[in-house]
């Protein structure tokens, strides 16, 4: 570890962040081991020293769950790691996850004063450091508020649902999480690959929530097994819908249903949830050819491309219709992918897929694009150049052009208002829907977004649900603790 610091000449000059060790691209591309290795104590202490401890910290405003960043970093500086993770968990029940997958450069770190002249403080890496340290030592479980006797049903065990469940449990409510898949975690288990977010870390965070007293009912697809109305009939006093943006978007061009064309969701579900990278030890197969094209430029596209390489593809090419500047993936993820050998074809868009006699894809016709005027998203609109069609030969395609809300609950719940794009209409601050006692958060409310923004909505909805339950029945609720008041809870060590 000394070596790592020595080889990093910027380790302590204040302007540059302490680098985090990553697995060598040549080696990591042959396995699913976690790429980013995290800080050791020495590195964490060095990086923590870079925090200026601003009196009016701007970083907190950049965090969707309002983590008290300078406070937890100060505790790291003082080597009070238990206190540091406690400080983090006051606001964030999934820190080991957020420390890994949050786009910190767009959030907290964007506002860091250090960033004006040099690198911002690596807040995410420090968050990961204290979370990992705690997991290795044994997780502390905060004492929850006195039981209120109120029951809340949380639909979906993804980032929004897990956060809402944890906060509501801390407030003394009895919480059941209904998860449609056979394991809790949502996109954290089916979407994000092992090498970016090891599943044992997700499981540890879920276990923490279980030990807060939250009950999990897996294999329960709400809308089919129970309706929202039936949940109320079963005695739940409030419902939180966090069913996510689970539906894959396709391009809608000819040949898309040929064999060898996967949605990114299918590709990643097979690999991450069903562990097909361990086939035939695990029963779910996956077929990856030699020449793979990934359509799209987001983090899901990067994850898909990197999985394809690990499953033996010789060439993996990301095809994105805008230029490198507009690519929506995190810079870090694009870098990781390119380090591993993924190539990118910018300003290109598929116009049709070509198949062989067996109905398997063998090529893509691409149209060259140019950038026109900015569209409503503020990015320059890609415009096809007529007559620029070319064909590339490939045998596997992964379509990673976004996901839309899962429609099942909306389609069977009378009175639940939805938007034209299929999300649930809700008060952005509270997650209140058009139905009394029904709240929402995460991608099903906002459309496809990040893990942390989903957590933020889950957190705000939990506060609103607590207020709602309180207003309904003041006698039953002697606990009037709100999340921001949880700071003084005592911690009991479970080991």
């Amino acid at each position, binding site marked *: 570890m000394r070596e790592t610091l020595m080889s990093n000449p910027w380790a302590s000059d204040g302007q540059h962040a302490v680098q985090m060790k990553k697995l060598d691209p040549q080696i990591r591309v042959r396995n699913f081991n976690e790429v980013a290795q995290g800080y050791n104590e020495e590195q964490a202490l060095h990086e923590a020293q870079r925090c200026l401890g601003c009196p009016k910290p701007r970083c907190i405003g950049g965090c969707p769950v309002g983590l008290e960043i300078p406070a937890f970093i100060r505790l790291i500086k003082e080597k009070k790691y238990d206190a540091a993770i406690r400080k983090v968990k006051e606001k964030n029940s999934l820190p080991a996850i957020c420390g890994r997958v949050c786009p910190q450069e767009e959030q907290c770190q964007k506002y860091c004063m250090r960033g004006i002249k040099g690198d911002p403080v690596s807040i995410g890496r420090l968050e990961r450091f204290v979370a990992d340290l705690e997991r290795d030592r044994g997780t502390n479980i905060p004492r929850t508020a006195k039981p209120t006797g109120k029951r809340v049903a949380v639909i979906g065990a993804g980032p929004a649902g897990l956060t809402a469940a944890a906060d509501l449990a801390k407030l003394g409510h009895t919480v059941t999480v209904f998860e449609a898949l056979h*394991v809790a975690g949502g996109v954290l288990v*089916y979407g994000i690959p092992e090498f970016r977010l090891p599943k044992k870390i997700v499981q540890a965070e879920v276990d923490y929530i279980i030990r807060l007293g939250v009950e999990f009912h897996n294999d329960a697809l709400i809308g*089919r097994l129970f309706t929202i109305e039936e949940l109320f009939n079963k005695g739940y006093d409030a419902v939180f819908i966090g069913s996510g943006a689970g*539906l894959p978007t396709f391009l809608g061009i000819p040949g898309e249903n040929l064999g060898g064309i996967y949605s990114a969701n299918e590709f990643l579900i097979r690999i991450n949830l069903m562990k097909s990278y361990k086939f035939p030890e695990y029963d779910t197969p996956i077929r990856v050819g030699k020449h793979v094209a990934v359509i799209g430029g987001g983090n899901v596209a990067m994850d898909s491309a990197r999985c394809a390489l690990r499953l033996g593809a010789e060439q993996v090419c990301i095809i994105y219709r805008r230029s490198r500047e507009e690519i929506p993936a995190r810079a870090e993820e694009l870098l990781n992918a390119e380090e591993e050998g993924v190539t990118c074809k910018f300003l290109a868009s598929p116009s049709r897929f070509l198949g062989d006699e067996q109905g398997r894809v063998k090529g893509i016709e691409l149209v060259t694009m140019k950038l026109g005027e900015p569209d409503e998203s503020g990015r320059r609109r890609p415009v096809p150049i007529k007559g620029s069609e070319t064909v590339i030969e490939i045998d596997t395609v992964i379509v990673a052009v976004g996901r839309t809300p899962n429609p099942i609950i909306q389609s069977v719940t009378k009175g639940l208002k939805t938007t034209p794009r299929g999300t649930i209409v809700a008060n952005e601050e509270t997650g209140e829907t058009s139905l009394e006692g029904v709240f929402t958060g995460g991608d099903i409310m906002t459309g496809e977004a990040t893990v942390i923004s989903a957590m933020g909505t889950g957190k705000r909805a939990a506060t609103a649900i607590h207020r709602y339950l309180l207003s309904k029945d003041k006698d039953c609720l002697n606990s009037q603790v709100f999340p921001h008041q949880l700071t003084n809870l005592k911690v009991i060590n479970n080991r």
Partner: protein
Amino acid sequence: MTTLRLQDAPENEIPTTYKILEKEELTSQIKQVRIHAPEIAEKAKAGQFVILRVDDEGERIPLTLVGWENETGTITLIFQEVGVSTKKLGCLQVQDEIKNIAGPLGKPSDVKNYGLAAVVCGGVGTAAAYPIAKALKEAGNTVISILGARTEKLLILEDEMKQVSDEFYITTDDGSRGRKGFVSDTLKSLIDNKYHFDVVYAIGPPLMMRSTSEVTRPYGIKTVVSLNPIMVDGMGMCGACRVSVGGATKFACLDGPEFDAHNTDFEELIRRLRVYPPEERLALDFHEKAPGGICKCGKR
């Protein structure tokens, strides 16, 4: 191996044990199991299916709900042992538990009183057709059933189908039982003779559903097929089960599994079902050569 099992944190998990209470061999390869699954039994409707996972390493496989009993809290499934997953399932004995069952999934059949209904089914597809025939009968339809198989030994649910049918025909490809030929031939001769069907349900192998669909097409008879493409999650997430219906891409798990036969692109369905044979053989080989063979899975 990373463990993802919630069972490791016992006190708060809702016990969902899917125990096998009865098991019956219908043919040498087709088996029937009755499973404890009260929540699913309460909600199941004709035409719906479940997705199950036999064990921790298991695939998620879709199986049609054949029966459900609210009183006993049980569901009945029928499956043909073809790949590793169904063979593993076939190894489970009474009192063994299935790891996960999610359901009911898919849209229920649009069952109403059409008048004269034909239920045409073949092979293990009869398992999916039976609850629909039963529901059609209960809704007041006159039900004519045509049950087919390659050979006599592969016929299943004969008595059950007979019970819910006003008229009942059997066909086998080799003539070992009933009429020699395909179910679609029998349907055609019924139509040509005297029957004015108001609806035809065709459930079985894709080729059989396609030929049945071609029989009814010239007559404009409403024809419904229940499709069984490759599925992974079964709740709209993966898109593996996409089928082209009337030129639009539909998800069998979400929009189906029942679709208008005359608008269904069967060629595409058949092609998409043929993706994984090499992997299936490899998996079978891997498990059969392992110590104890496939059935060790059931003994864990």
